[in-house]
């Protein structure tokens, strides 16, 4: 598959932007500006980027509690996302949803979710809807290795398969569900994809820290969904570089060693892509610097936006319960 420079640039831009967004959120959380639960996507940027860049603008995604990367890669606005994390009226949900419920319906971002596996039904239903409306839209359903143990996953696999729905199940296997290791909670003599294969879905297992690999798997799945051939499954193997959420630092040493973490830091996707782009002379240092500068400006603007956006007035509480 030919990947042009423009696309590589975009990939780098998105990965780097997600990384920097998360670092900014982390920083603001420590300062108390970000409120509520915060699950960082650091280390997993290649997955959201590779998948979302394979989608059309009007395609849908469903996301998770660790969802900033998905939203940003699908074109979401860092200003409104950051404001949401900080509980401001300028946020995507006017501060009512926070990190775990950020959504941009106008961009097909059907929402993060606080329930592990909560997006399976929504994604599959959106695919049914797309098929019924003959819109040609495709749905990418992001979920974690932990979520793969929710029974709902298998229920929707069956329905997506029998009705040939245009949905792609993207399992982000980052090694952990909270503080329990993937290998402890999940059968491992078969990959997670075996579950999808049991329903006849084409499955792929890719290096989730390799954005190109993710992208290529996604493109194939999208094409087949768009062509009416039904659902696919992708497992992206990656690694969670931060804690489960901000504020659980006390747990850090309980579930992994420093050495393990350091080993994985060497493989982290943004730096790795950066090095590769330079090595392969696909982007120049100058181009990269320009992208990074653009990102810093965006994030600066986002912080300013947050600062200018007030916390909602208590009178808003009873709004938006019913449409």
């Amino acid at each position, binding site marked *: 598959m030919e990947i042009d420079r423009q696309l590589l640039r975009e990939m780098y831009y998105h990965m780097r932007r997600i990384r920097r967004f998360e670092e900014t959120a982390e920083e603001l959380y420590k300062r108390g500006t970000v409120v509520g639960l915060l699950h960082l996507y650091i280390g997993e940027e290649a997955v959201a980027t590779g998948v979302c860049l394979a989608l059309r603008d009007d395609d*849908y995604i*469903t996301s998770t509690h660790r969802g900033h990367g998905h939203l940003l890669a699908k074109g979401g606005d860092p200003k409104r996302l950051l404001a949401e994390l900080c509980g401001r009226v300028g*946020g*995507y*949900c*006017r*501060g*009512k*949803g926070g990190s775990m*419920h950020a*959504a*941009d*319906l*106008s961009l097909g971002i*059907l*929402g993060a*979710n*606080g*329930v592990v596996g*909560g997006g*399976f*039904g*929504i*994604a*599959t*239903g*959106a*695919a*049914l*809807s*797309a098929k*019924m*409306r003959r819109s040609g839209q495709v749905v990418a359903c992001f979920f974690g290795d932990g979520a793969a143990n929710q*029974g*709902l996953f298998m*229920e*929707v696999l*069956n*329905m997506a398969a*029998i009705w040939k729905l245009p949905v792609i199940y993207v399992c982000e296997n980052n090694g952990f569900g909270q503080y329990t290791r993937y290998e402890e909670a999940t059968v491992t003599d078969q990959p997670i994809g075996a579950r999808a294969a049991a329903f006849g879905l084409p499955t792929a297992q890719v290096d989730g820290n390799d954005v190109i690999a993710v992208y290529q798997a996604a493109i194939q799945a999208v094409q087949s969904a768009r062509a009416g051939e039904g659902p696919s499954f992708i497992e992206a193997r990656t690694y969670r570089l931060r804690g489960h959420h901000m504020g659980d630092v006390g747990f850090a040493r309980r579930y992994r060693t420093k050495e393990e973490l350091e080993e994985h830091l060497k493989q982290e996707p943004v730096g790795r892509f950066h090095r590769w782009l330079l090595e392969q002379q696909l982007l120049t240092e100058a181009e990269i610097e320009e992208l990074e500068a653009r990102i810093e400006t965006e994030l600066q603007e986002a912080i300013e936006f947050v600062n200018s956006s007030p916390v909602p007035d208590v009178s808003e509480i009873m*709004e*938006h*319960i*019913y*449409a």
Partner: protein
Amino acid sequence: MPEMREITIVEALREALAEEMSRDPTVFLMGEDIGRANGVFNVTAGLQDEFGKERVIDTPISEAGFTGMGVGAALTGMRPVIEILFCDFMTLAMDQIVNQAAKLHYMTGGQAKVPLVIRTLMGAGRGAAAQHSQSLHAWVAHIPGLKVVMPSTPYDAKGLLKSAIRDDNPVVFFEDKMSYQVKGLVPVGEYTIPLGVADVKRVGGDVTFIATSSMVQVALAAAEMLAQEGISAEVVDPRTLKPLDKETILESVKKTGRVVIIDEGYLSYGVTAEIAAIIADEAFDYLDAPVKRLGAMDVPVPMVPVLEQATVPNAEQLVTTARSLFGRRY
């Protein structure tokens, strides 16, 4: 006056579904055996023939899955009407109903809309035992973001179902399986009934019965019996639990000063409690007697009919309870 004819609740529901599907191409149905089999209780009879397999979808036995898919479809431009056969099986889909459907509009700050209708069955009476006989409407009535409908007549069933389908919020619509063959007059033409408006099913001055779903018939029967003793009972059917038409309820209680609330859910922590609590607060000064209520006995519904029947409130109990309110004068 519109032309009327007498039809059953099953027929009324079927008409509502057919009319809304004809009117709006985004309305579709999903559930177990609703298509080729016509629905276990015939509510969807003929609809798959009329509207095709794409719009009347027979699902696998995956309640959580297809309810969740209903949410996703509703979020993206469709108006799904799904059927969860017995409301006992809502237990399998509560996350989708309560954490997803009910909250998405709010959690997204008003962006998302979930125009989803969940039709489901309630009530004992078929010897179907404890896992097929519950009336769990109190659960969903407890959840902000959901609307809850409980029709008691063919007229209400049709008008309310049409409104539920047109509503932009998730609505849980409870059908009583023993009332399906209840007959009543229904206009020939198009009409809807707004959600949130109670109906006074019988006018009376001495005591108010607030009755839901199949208990409306029980209340009407009890009212007839009491009439013979010179006690005039008013029967108020809230028709929807969320929104709840407090005004009509309070107005009646303020008029009569006496009230019995009757509902087929388990008595404890059930729907009768909320209505009683509202009255004990907001109509306190008008009450001439304790606030009484009848619900299903707090017991898993036994299979054998002689026990099963005894768990459901009946007209005799209601009469006795009502009478007890007149032994005293304040």
